[in-house]
């Protein structure tokens, strides 16, 4: 890590360092939080000095025709903002839209405190010193975990249930996320715990689920889109640790009870899984 940060430039795309942010951020001297394929993400404040926020900027793509590029950027930012406002109206936990300018390519969202589900799961795995061992059955492993700390397992299953309910609520209001990974689910600590502290451990398992990154979201009620959301999330769980796959059953169980029509989605998920497996066997 240290050597990496000492010499950060060699392979980084030049564009990362030459972007001039549009108004009003041009002279704000902001540090990049993440750089995705399409968007640069910054942390800053907006409207008041005490309102932390995320700035998402989609810079012009030099390899695209400028008019087409502008149109695409505008369409995507607008779609993202519209979905977020719709969710907020319906009481689905997502960041608020604080501002935006589609012509200039930026969107400002409420800052969500907490950690991603991915981080929480990784830390849980690390905490228990779990390692996938040859010849051990995943379920055995999970049983062992249950025995080791029943209380923690209960809290973890509670968290999984809240993930299932959050995704269910999203689908119920007619939105599919489109990129439902564990990195796009945040666990926001309960009210008074909101100061970020590196020392929190088991408290991470409390808190409400907030969905983020609606850059690929669509307004749809199709079972197929809903099932694909679940499938993507399932793959993300599996990638964390074999024991996390076991946890995912609890996500699905609560999802299945979260709205009328959820059971049908679970059936459809089985088809999607099958296709996913075939694709990996052929490809």
């Amino acid at each position, binding site marked *: 890590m240290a050597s990496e940060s000492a010499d950060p430039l060699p392979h980084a795309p030049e564009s990362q360092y030459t972007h001039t942010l549009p*108004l*009003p*951020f041009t002279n*704000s001297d902001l540090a990049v939080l993440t750089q995705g394929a399409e968007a640069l993400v910054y942390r*800053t*404040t*907006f*409207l*008041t*000095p*005490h*309102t932390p926020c995320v700035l998402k900027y989609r810079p012009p793509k030099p390899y695209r025709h400028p008019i087409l590029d502008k149109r695409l950027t505008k369409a995507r930012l*607008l779609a993202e*903002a*519209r979905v*977020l*406002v719709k969710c*907020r*109206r*319906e*009481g*689905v*936990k997502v960041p*608020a*839209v*604080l*501002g*935006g*300018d*589609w*012509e*200039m390519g930026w969107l400002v969202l*409420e800052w969500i405190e907490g950690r991603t589900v991915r981080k929480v799961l990784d830390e849980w795995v690390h905490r228990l010193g779990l390692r996938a061992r040859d010849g051990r059955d995943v379920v055995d492993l999970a049983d062992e975990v249950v025995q080791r700390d029943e209380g923690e397992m209960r809290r973890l299953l509670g968290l999984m249930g809240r993930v299932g*309910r959050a995704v269910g*609520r999203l689908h*119920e*209001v007619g939105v599919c996320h489109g990129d439902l990974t564990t990195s796009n689910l945040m666990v926001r600590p309960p009210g008074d715990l909101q100061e970020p502290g590196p020392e929190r451990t088991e408290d991470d398992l409390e808190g*409400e689920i907030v969905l983020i990154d609606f850059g690929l979201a669509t307004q749809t009620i199709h079972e197929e889109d809903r099932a694909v959301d679940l499938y993507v999330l399932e793959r993300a769980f599996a990638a964390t640790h074999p024991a996390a796959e076991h946890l995912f059953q609890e996500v699905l169980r609560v999802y299945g009870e979260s*709205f009328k029509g959820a059971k049908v989605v679970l059936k459809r998920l089985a088809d999607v899984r099958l296709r996913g497996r075939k694709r990996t066997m052929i490809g």
Partner: protein
Amino acid sequence: MAKVRTINLPHYTAYPVHICMFKDVKNAAFLRKQLLEANPEFDYAFLDPTMILTPQHILSATLLSLHLHLTSRAKTRTPHSELVFRLHPNNNIGESYRKFGISDDSDRIIAVKLSLTPEITNESVGQHLGSVVEGESVDVGEGVENVGMWCDVEKVKKVYKLDSNGGKGREGGTAVNGNAPTNERKEMEAVMSGVITLKGS
């Protein structure tokens, strides 16, 4: 001399925002007439405080108005008229003025003035408004936290189409579920900033 609070919008700190509140106003008709006649001495946003919910509410419309003005995309003559326009979710300028502007019999007023030129200062605004508004100046608060104190929450919900029963199939913590007023306002302003941002798109 009226009590003026001056704040800086992050990223637009070169254009301070001055805000004043008045009660027991006696000459709203006169003030409104100056606006209608586009008297350059009266380039303010005079707002109906029953329609202003929170600082975030008024500031999201203020920032966008300023931003659109500075980038030559405003739909109205000045950033102050733009502010009144931006507050309304619909694209009808007259309707925006009727809902968010003052009327001839308003007895409470919020006045907003942007420093687009250096001679507009906290003092100059306080001096001018103190001399032309016949009413009692009320402190807006250091973080302009008092802008929402005269709000008619139900009226605001109606204009922004915020369903007071929350969305369908809700669970605890829905859009506007609260009995706790601060929580309810927080949920409301979260939607309203988004609506203001999406206006006209």
